[in-house]
């Protein structure tokens, strides 16, 4: 940083950075910008005496035939994927939606209690599990059928899949933190109804003022 700062300032007094360096600068700015960049904007950002128009011409030439190209958008410039490689972008384009509360709760119960039957899930959640919820989780390949339970009716059980572990960055479902650990990590809302019984968590009385410590004013 210090080097470039020096370069930038010194150069402004004497001469512009070499064209190769200007090309690098334009390259970095076009890449990092969320919007196309005008020559005027480049001039304002680059060291005094730079010639971004010329750097753009050279950069554009350099990217000819490459996987990405320097293209003009209106009166501004941007980096774009070469049109013939658009097929590679296909996978990136999926609409993502957040999982519903029912689905995430069902998934959490399966992860923590697997193998678990539908009626056990309902018992833990306290509400019926809709068919669509289970179907969705199976379709996402986050849960699958486990072995049947050897009890009357031989109900099917559900377990989580490798895909689930991959998605959530877990080595195994047993690595999921327990209640105590969730609480210790501050993930558990400790608000309780007044007069509620004393639980296993009474040791966790580290105050909320600690939270303040996390950020310092600058």
């Amino acid at each position: 940083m210090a080097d470039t700062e020096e370069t930038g300032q010194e150069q402004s007094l004497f001469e512009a950075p070499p064209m190769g360096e200007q090309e690098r600068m334009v390259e970095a700015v076009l890449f990092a910008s969320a919007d196309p960049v005008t020559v005027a904007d480049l001039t304002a950002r680059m060291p005094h005496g730079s010639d971004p128009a010329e750097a753009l011409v050279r950069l554009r030439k350099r990217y000819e035939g490459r996987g990405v190209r320097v293209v003009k958008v209106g009166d501004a410039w941007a980096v774009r994927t070469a049109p013939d490689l658009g097929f590679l972008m296909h996978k990136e384009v999926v609409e993502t939606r957040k999982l519903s509360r029912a689905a995430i709760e069902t998934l959490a119960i399966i992860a923590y209690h697997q193998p678990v039957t539908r009626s056990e899930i309902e018992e833990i959640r306290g509400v019926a599990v809709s068919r669509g919820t289970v179907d969705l989780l199976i379709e996402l390949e986050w849960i699958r059928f486990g072995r049947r339970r050897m009890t009357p009716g031989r109900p099917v059980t559900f377990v989580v899949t490798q895909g689930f572990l991959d998605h959530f960055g877990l080595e195994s479902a047993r690595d999921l933190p327990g209640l105590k650990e969730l609480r210790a990590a501050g993930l558990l809302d400790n608000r309780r109804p007044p007069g509620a019984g004393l639980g296993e968590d009474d040791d966790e009385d580290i105050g909320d003022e600690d939270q303040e410590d996390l950020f310092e004013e600058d």
Partner: protein
Amino acid sequence: MQDDDFQPDVLSVSERLAAEALIVDVDGFEGPLDLLLTLGRTQKVDLRKVSILGLAEQYLAFIEKARALRLELAADYLVMAAWLAFLKSRLLLPPDPSEEGPSGEDLAAHLAYQLERLQAMRDAAARLMGRDQRGREFFSRGLPEDVVRSRHVTYTATLMDLMQAYARIRTKDEFRPFTMDRNNLMTMEEALDRMRGLIGFAGEWSDLHSWLPEGWETDPVRRRTATAATFAASLQLVKEGHLELRQGETFAPIQIRKKP
């Protein structure tokens, strides 16, 4: 701080100012280890060569001053003070061969190690934060190209969502009356309550099974739990001297009657 060694007894003006600054700063320390590390630095030596005895004395002097100034000290500072006083005595007195446990030198060496390790982690943290950081010195693509819109929908959830969902369910659970899970379970207490009420009618020997509550005799799960609870309850009543129990031979029916 200053060049000469910290001397708790004879304080120069600058030293006293420094010591007072430390004391005023007590809220700024993250616990006794942090304070010890700061004191250790005033010795102006490599942390590996820090004098633990000297450090213990500095710490104890600090605590004394803080008390004299009536500063509120957290309990762990006082625990550390007690421990350092103990360590000091171990380091000063010749080792007592009859005494169990690690030597004063071992304890001092470990404290020195802890200080060095904490300092090392602080240096590492500073180096880490001094690195070029994404979004500060270097940048990712400002406009990621999520091209072709396909109607393909995926659902996402983070590990946080998952854990919070589970925590939500489980905390809800903590407030649920426990008996709701127990439709098919009879406890010994329940059986005992029931037997106490019925015991007066048990003048003659009768089969234990005939004492199972109504509705618990047919379903195998319920029958098993009711039998076990009733049997345990009758043992308790025998112990209390209210009931007699007999069995003709192994696996023969168990019979009970009120103690005459």
